[in-house]
């Protein structure tokens, strides 16, 4: 199996390695959009195509057209992220191959692959039977596989960079829900912006990060990122939610957590169906007391 990947950054290398083994890959190639990333990852790929440009759909389309004119990968892998899905869709349009997103595992059955993907807001898993050739946009999971060293050739693509697109990188703050062991999450049960201090304080005391649900970020502008299908997907050891009801689109970003703790006044809130520990009660009583208790211990 000749497998091609769209490498958004080096954190995807173990993920692609995992699927490469599952799919019995024999040759691994990839596309990166920066020299730094190409240098970092090249040794884990037989061939790393490099197009040094800011991301844009135009750049991706040009790169894929060139790569497909050179080689016909049997399987293409993409990150199930915003850019990864767009790239995957462009690839599907160019090749006509079946493509499935939100893929978390693949089983091999004879000469068929059974692709397991999340659907219906992550509340269900669908198993889809495919044969070669196809494309998958895979979820990050937490694969620790050490990638195999490979041939490591870098192939620069002679394609004009996209100078029309502007990119402003997210400010790197100390608060990074994607890598934290515990993520403290505020939902609409938090009544005032000032009360976010309590959420941030608990995150600080536990050495973790904080985040919010979409309405708090998109409607109230209390944060510039949120957890959920259109935002971040996190997989901390502990996800602790205050005033979060647990809509499917939010929970899809949180299910990777080892433990889910939820505090909510509404005992019918859907989040309790997916919690290890559910507290039916007023977060304004529980949260300050929890903060005091942890302070006593320090």
């Amino acid at each position, binding site marked *: 199996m000749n497998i091609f990947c769209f490498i958004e*950054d080096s954190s995807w290398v173990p993920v692609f390695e995992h699927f490469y083994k599952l799919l019995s890959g024999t040759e691994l190639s990839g596309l990166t959009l920066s020299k730094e990333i190409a240098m970092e990852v090249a040794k884990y790929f037989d061939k790393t195509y490099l197009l040094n440009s*800011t991301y*844009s*759909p*135009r750049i991706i389309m040009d790169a894929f057209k060139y790569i497909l004119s050179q080689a016909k990968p049997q399987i293409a892998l993409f990150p199930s*992220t*915003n850019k990864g*899905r*767009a790239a*995957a*869709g*462009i*690839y*599907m*349009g160019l090749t006509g191959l*079946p*493509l*499935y997103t939100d893929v978390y595992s693949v089983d091999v059955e004879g000469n068929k692959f059974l692709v397991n993907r999340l*659907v*219906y*807001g992550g*509340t*269900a*898993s*669908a*198993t*889809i*039977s*495919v044969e070669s050739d196809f494309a998958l946009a895979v979820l990050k999971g937490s694969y620790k596989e050490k990638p195999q060293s490979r041939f490591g050739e870098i192939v620069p693509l002679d394609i004009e960079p996209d100078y*029309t*697109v*502007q*990119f*402003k*990188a*997210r400010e790197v703050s100390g608060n990074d829900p994607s890598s934290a*062991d515990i993520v403290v999450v505020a939902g609409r049960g938090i009544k005032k912006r000032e009360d976010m201090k309590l959420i941030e304080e608990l995150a600080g005391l536990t*050495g973790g990060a904080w985040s919010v649900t979409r309405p708090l970020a*998109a409607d109230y502008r209390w944060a510039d990122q949120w957890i959920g299908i*259109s935002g971040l997907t996190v997989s901390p050891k502990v996800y602790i939610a205050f005033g979060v009801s647990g*809509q*499917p689109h939010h929970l899809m970003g949180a299910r990777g957590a080892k*433990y889910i*703790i939820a*505090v909510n006044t509404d*005992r019918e809130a859907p989040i*309790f169906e*997916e*919690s*290890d*520990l559910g*507290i*039916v*009660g007023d977060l304004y*009583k*529980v949260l300050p*007391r*929890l903060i005091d208790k*942890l302070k006593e*211990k320090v």
Partner: protein
Amino acid sequence: MKILVPIKLSYDINQMKYDERTGEPILDAVPMIMGDMDRCAIEAALRLKESLGGTVEFLSIGSRDTHNKMMMDAYAMGCDKGYLIEVDNYKELNAYSVAYLISKFAEKYGPYDIIILGNTSQDTHSSIVPPAVSSLLSYSSAFGIDKINVEDGEYVFEATYEDGIYVFKLRPPMVISVTTEANTPRIPTLKDILRAKRMKYDILKPSDLDVELELARVNISSIKRFATPRRGEMIEVDSDEDVEKAVDRIVELLKEAEII
């Protein structure tokens, strides 16, 4: 300016129901709706028409029986003309077939200056049909747009991705997809809804679009409720003592997870 908005009838995933015993979804009991992002796509198209002039057409793939209400919803919002491509068992079509039908439609009924779609559907949330349409038509494109501005014939689109904010500047013809951040869709008045009921939409078959290839379908072997096993321990908090008990259990769990 000629704008096309392809829309999808999706399961309302906020009302998913599962068979307790088998874990299989009871899809007949789940209402089907126009997705939130599809509504935002129509709204974005209507606003462009209102400021720049033109027409807004919409397109869906499915059957008259199931899609009629959604088609009326699109008219009630203010769209000028609707089309429905009738396909048997439309729910099984794979994403490529959907993108292919849309692109064939756009070639035959266009050219369209802008094709606007919702970034993700409500139920399968793949976000892959808009980019596939763009590559099938070789149009400029930008996806997951939160903000739209038009400056001297140039369209400026802002999108927030995992690593930061991207600003794309494009000129028609183009394919774009919008998120729910892009706008707040208008709510039709009773008058709009009554007016929409008198509107008709054109019905076509894939063969009317010279689609000869067999439309590929998704070969699903099973769909089951996806749930990570959880402990499901519950504590009801009424008194101050309950608060203590709840806080103690949280602290114990934090210790077990080696957080503290």
